[in-house]
C-alpha cells in the first residue's frame, strides 16, 4: 500500500525522539544532575549544547527529557486507553439510564481540558512521574470513553450484530469479533492524537512546577529553568521546545497517516 510522504516524515520524527530516549538509557555525555560543568557554558567544545545556570550539561538533560516525555506520553495513553475503552464499551452496552448517567459524567469531565484535571489529581497526590501519568491518563480516558461509546453504538445498530446474536453468539464474543475490530482503526487514530496532547500536557505541568520533581529533567522543566537566562543562554530556552514540537508534529503526522489508512475515502480528498 502506498503511504503518503507526510506519514513517513511523521514516522521519522517519532523514531528520532525514540532513538534519543533509547540511547539515553545506555549512554549519556554527562550525569544530568552533575553540576561541575561550569555555569552557562556556551555550546561547543566539551558541552555540545552548553550548560544551564547550575552547570548541568544540557544535551544530557535533553536526552533524559526524551525518555520522560515518551514515558508519560505512552503511559498515559495506556491508562487512558484501557479506562476509556472499558467505560465506553460499558456505556455503549448499558441500559438507557446507566448510559445517560455515564454520558453526563463524561460530558462534564470533557468540559475540563486535560491540564486542569491533571492539576486536580496532582493537587491531592504528590507531584511525581506516576501522578503525571495517572493524571493525564485519567483526563484522557473521558475523551476516549465518549468516542468509544459513539462508535460502539454505531456498530451495535448494524444488522450483522442482530444476525450474529440471533445465531447464538454471546455478548462477549460479539465484542471481540465484531465491535472491537470495527472500532479500533478510529480509536487508534484518536489515541495517537491523544499521545501528542499528553506530551504537551506533561510539558505544561512541568513548566508550572507540578510535573515529575527533580532530578527528572522533563522538557517543560528545562524550559521553565531556562526562562530567566534566555538572553545569555538562548540554547537552553530553544532546544527543549524544538524537541517538543518535533515529537508532537511527528505524532500528529503519524495519526493523520493512520486516519488515511483507516478511511480510504479521505485519501483522495486531501
Amino acid at each position, binding site marked *: 500500500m502506498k503511504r503518503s510522504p507526510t506519514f513517513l516524515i511523521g514516522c521519522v520524527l517519532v523514531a528520532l525522539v525514540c532513538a534519543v530516549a533509547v540511547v539515553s538509557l545506555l549512554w549519556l555525555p554527562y550525569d544530568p544532575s552533575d553540576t561541575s560543568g561550569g555555569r552557562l557554558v556556551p555550546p561547543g567544545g566539551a558541552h555540545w549544547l552548553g550548560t544551564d545556570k547550575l552547570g548541568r550539561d544540557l544535551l544530557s538533560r535533553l536526552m533524559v527529557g526524551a525518555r520522560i516525555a515518551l514515558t508519560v506520553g505512552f503511559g498515559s495513553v495506556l491508562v487512558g486507553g484501557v479506562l476509556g475503552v472499558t467505560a465506553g464499551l460499558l456505556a455503549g452496552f448499558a441500559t438507557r439510564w446507566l448510559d445517560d448517567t455515564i454520558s*453526563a*459524567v463524561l*460530558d*462534564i*469531565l470533557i*468540559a*475540563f*481540558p486535560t*491540564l*486542569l484535571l491533571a*492539576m*486536580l*489529581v*496532582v*493537587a*491531592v*497526590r504528590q507531584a511525581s512521574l506516576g501522578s503525571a501519568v495517572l493524571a493525564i491518563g485519567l483526563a484522557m480516558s473521558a475523551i476516549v470513553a465518549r468516542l468509544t461509546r459513539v462508535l460502539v453504538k454505531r456498530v451495535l445498530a448494524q444488522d450483522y450484530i442482530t444476525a450474529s446474536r440471533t445465531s447464538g453468539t454471546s455478548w462477549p464474543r460479539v465484542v471481540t469479533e465484531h465491535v472491537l475490530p470495527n472500532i479500533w482503526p478510529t480509536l487508534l487514530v484518536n489515541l495517537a492524537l491523544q499521545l*501528542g496532547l499528553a506530551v*504537551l500536557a506533561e*510539558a*505544561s505541568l512541568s*513548566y*508550572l*512546577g*507540578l510535573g515529575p520533581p527533580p532530578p527528572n529533567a522533563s522538557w*517543560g522543566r528545562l*524550559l521553565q529553568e531556562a*526562562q530567566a537566562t*534566555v*538572553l545569555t543562554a*538562548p540554547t537552553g*530556552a530553544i532546544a527543549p*521546545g524544538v524537541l*517538543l*514540537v518535533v515529537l*508532537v*508534529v511527528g505524532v*500528529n*503526522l503519524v495519526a493523520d497517516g493512520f486516519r488515511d489508512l483507516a478511511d480510504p475515502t479521505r485519501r483522495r*480528498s486531501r
Partner: protein
Amino acid sequence: MARYLLRRTAFLLGSLLLAATLLFLLLRLLPGDPANSLLSVGATPEQIAAARHQIGSDRPLPEQFGSWLGGLARFDLGTSFVSTLPVGQEIASRLVVTVPLTLLSFLLAVVVAVPVGFLAAYRADRWYGPLLNGVSQLGIAVPVFWIGMLLVTVFALRLRVLPAGGFPRHEWEDPAAALTSLALPVVTIALVMSASLIRYVRSATVDVLGADYLRTARALGSSFVGAMWRHGLRNAAVPVISILGIELATTFLGAVVVESVFALPGLGGMLVKGIAEHDYPVIQGVLVVSTFAVLVIGFAADLVQRLVDPRLRAHLAGGRP
C-alpha cells in the same frame, strides 16, 4: 423554542450539581486530610483536632457536602486556609484579569482564523494554501507557554516595546496600561488557538465549496460571493460555532499556563498557588467557577447554533438536549 430552553436549562442545572458533586468527591476521596495544610510537621493531637474542627473535616462527609452545596447556593465559596479571606471575593478580583484576557484572545483568534482558514481551503491549489495548512499543523504542536517565552524574549527583552509580565496595580483604572500588559499574553493565546481554529474553518469551507447547493446556486446565476453569503456561510457556521464554544472554554481554562508565563494575577495563578499551598477552598472555588463558566459557554454555543440552523430548531420536538 421555549420548551427547548426549559429542558436545556434543567440540563445545565443538573450538570452544575453533578459537577459540584464530582469535584467534592474527587478532592475528599483521595487520601490526605485538608487540615494537614494548616499544621506544621510536629503538631500535637489537640492541634490536629482543632484544625480539623476549624475546617470541618471532622464532620461526616454528607454533612460537609451539604454545607458546601448550601454555601454554593448562596454564592459563598468558603474562606481560604492560607489568607483567611473569602474565596469568592478573591476569585472576583482575579476575573478582572482572566475574563478580558480570554475574550480578547478569543476575538483575535477568530478574526485571524476565519479568513485564513477560508483561504487555505479556497486557494488550496495556490502555493499559500498548503503553506497555511502546514503552519497550522505546526501551531497545534507548539506548547503555548513556549510561544509566550519566545514572544517575551523578542518583544520585551530584545525590542523592549512591551512589558514582559505583570499587571498594573490599579487594574483597569488606566485602560491603556492594562491593555499593553495584556498584549503579549493575548497574542500568545490567540496564535495557538487560531492554529486549531484554522483547521476547523478550513474543513468546514472545503465541505461547503464542494456542496451541490452551492453549485446549483451558481448555475442559477448567483455570484460566488452572493452564493457564499446566502448558503455557504450559514452551512459552514454550524460546525464552527460548536467548536468555537469548546475553544472559548478551553481558552478560559488554558489561561492558567499563560498567566504564569506573564505573572498575571488571574484565576490560573490563583489555582497554581492554591495547589502549591494545599489550600482546598481555593482549589475547589476556582474549579467550581471554571466549571460553571465552561457549562454556561456550552449552553450559549448550543443556543446560538440552534438560532443559526433551522434544521436543529425543527428537530427540537424530538431529540435529546
